[in-house]
């Protein structure tokens, strides 16, 4: 029995380097970073000062009245990205399409801004009640539900929360649902809005956030930089896309998952290797076929060294032939939303034969000696790519993509 193929027909992005796919991709190929001093939270009592905030995003431009009231910022990002992706795909949802579609979103903390507002109201302002919609705005499934409601999607709808791997898990799940014939199409991705005082102080306490910027694989890297935003992709069966005459942007061909079962924050090389191997096996692609890996590449001393070692170990002699980069250097680490943004970057890379750069790279690190695309994007014929995510809690999820070449 032949396996159903799953293709991508729409992408949508809201990020620090662009509030739609076009401007996002333009920033990527120009190596333009969106990292700078954050302003949505008072930086005075926070030891790090930089982040990748979404600028020039005005909710009232996108939503009105009731819809606006119901959504915390992470849901707003998710819906805007979903709308762009669906518009590009050309899918028009009716009852039949709604029931044969899925929505799966990733997020690590959901509506944290609404949550923090509620805490502030009670503990600081001594109010006797919080906003009546605090629960619907805070709940991590809000984005998935809002997208489902907006488009009338009545098939499988849920949210996945696996820290930094959330969106890869979400997209991977959607891919498998379609491949296994559970549904015909899906909107999948994720979003995150980490800029609240408590959340930033929590990250400060863990001491993994850089004081300057995000420099993945560079010898002088100091850590990660938090970012906000979201991305969604429309996935559908190849038959469905062809029947509609849809323009196909790329193909998703494999999904791998693993758990380190090791440490609650420190990544484990063996776990990362298992996830990449599983994605390759699921994709039925040879290791020697992979051209590009969009790495997890957080810019922490530990992750980048581990990820390099894992890639070298499983790809063997081919490791020196493939190229890697970390787009977190430009859009920041969106936590539960990051791998959705990275999926779009990877799909666009394959589509355009352009390797995204790793911005802010300064000094080679002998322990990160893969072919890191540094600072400037590069033209290269690309066919297969992986997108890695290795999350806190030791949860790993890897997606495999193929360039769409017409059949």
């Amino acid at each position, binding site marked *: 029995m032949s396996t159903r193929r799953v293709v991508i027909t729409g992408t949508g992005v809201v990020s620090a380097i662009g509030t739609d796919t076009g401007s996002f991709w333009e920033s990527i190929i120009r190596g333009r970073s969106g990292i700078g001093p954050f302003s949505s939270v008072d930086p005075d009592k926070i*030891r790090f000062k930089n982040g990748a905030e979404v600028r020039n995003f005005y909710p009232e431009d996108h939503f009105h009245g009731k819809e606006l009231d119901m959504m915390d910022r992470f849901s707003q990002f998710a819906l805007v990205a979903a709308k762009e992706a669906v518009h590009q795909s050309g899918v028009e949802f009716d009852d039949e399409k709604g029931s044969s579609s899925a929505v799966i979103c990733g997020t690590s903390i959901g509506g944290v801004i609404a949550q923090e507002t509620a805490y502030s109201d009670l503990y600081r302002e001594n109010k006797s009640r919080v906003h009546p919609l605090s629960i619907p705005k805070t709940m991590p499934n809000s984005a998935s539900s809002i997208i489902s409601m907006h488009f009338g999607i009545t098939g499988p709808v849920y949210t996945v929360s696996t820290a930094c791997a959330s969106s890869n898990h979400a997209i991977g799940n959607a891919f498998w649902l379609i491949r296994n014939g559970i549904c015909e199409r899906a909107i999948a991705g994720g979003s995150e809005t980490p800029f609240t005082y408590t959340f930033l102080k929590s990250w400060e*306490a863990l*001491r993994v956030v850089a004081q300057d910027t995000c420099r993945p694989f560079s010898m002088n890297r100091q850590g990660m930089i938090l970012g906000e935003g979201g991305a969604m992709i429309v996935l559908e069966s190849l038959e469905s896309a062809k029947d509609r005459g849809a323009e196909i942007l790329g193909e998703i061909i494999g999904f791998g998952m693993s758990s380190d079962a090791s*440490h609650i924050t*420190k990544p484990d090389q063996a776990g990362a290797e298992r996830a990449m191997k599983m994605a390759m096996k699921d994709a039925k692609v040879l290791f020697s076929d992979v051209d590009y890996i969009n790495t997890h590449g957080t810019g922490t001393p530990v992750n980048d060294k581990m990820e390099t070692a894992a890639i070298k170990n499983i790809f063997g002699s081919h490791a020196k032939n493939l190229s890697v980069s970390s787009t977190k250097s430009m859009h920041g680490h969106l936590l539960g939303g990051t791998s959705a943004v990275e999926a779009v970057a990877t799909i666009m890379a394959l589509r355009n034969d352009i390797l995204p750069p790793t911005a802010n790279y300064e000094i080679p690190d002998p322990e990160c000696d893969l072919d890191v695309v540094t600072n400037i994007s590069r033209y290269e014929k690309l066919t297969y790519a992986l997108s890695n995510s290795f999350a806190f809690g030791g949860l790993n999820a890897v997606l495999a993509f193929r360039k769409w070449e017409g059949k």
Partner: protein
Amino acid sequence: MDMTSVVFDKIKDILVLKKGIPAGSIHLESSFEELGMDSLDAVELLADLEDAFSVDIPNSELQHFKTIQQAVNGIEEAISK
């Protein structure tokens, strides 16, 4: 009591109480690894020491925070600033 002893005793108290490390195994020359501490344990110890001595230790110092002696040195230096 000299500052080194004060800081060392505080480190010992924290590790015994919070991490259950036997007091007899904690020496100035002990490495965190020898004491069975990982990177998260080191971050937690640093936070407790910052609170105890009202100092701020920047992230860049973490890489030098691998032994009890280094921890004592780091705190003493921060106190003297």
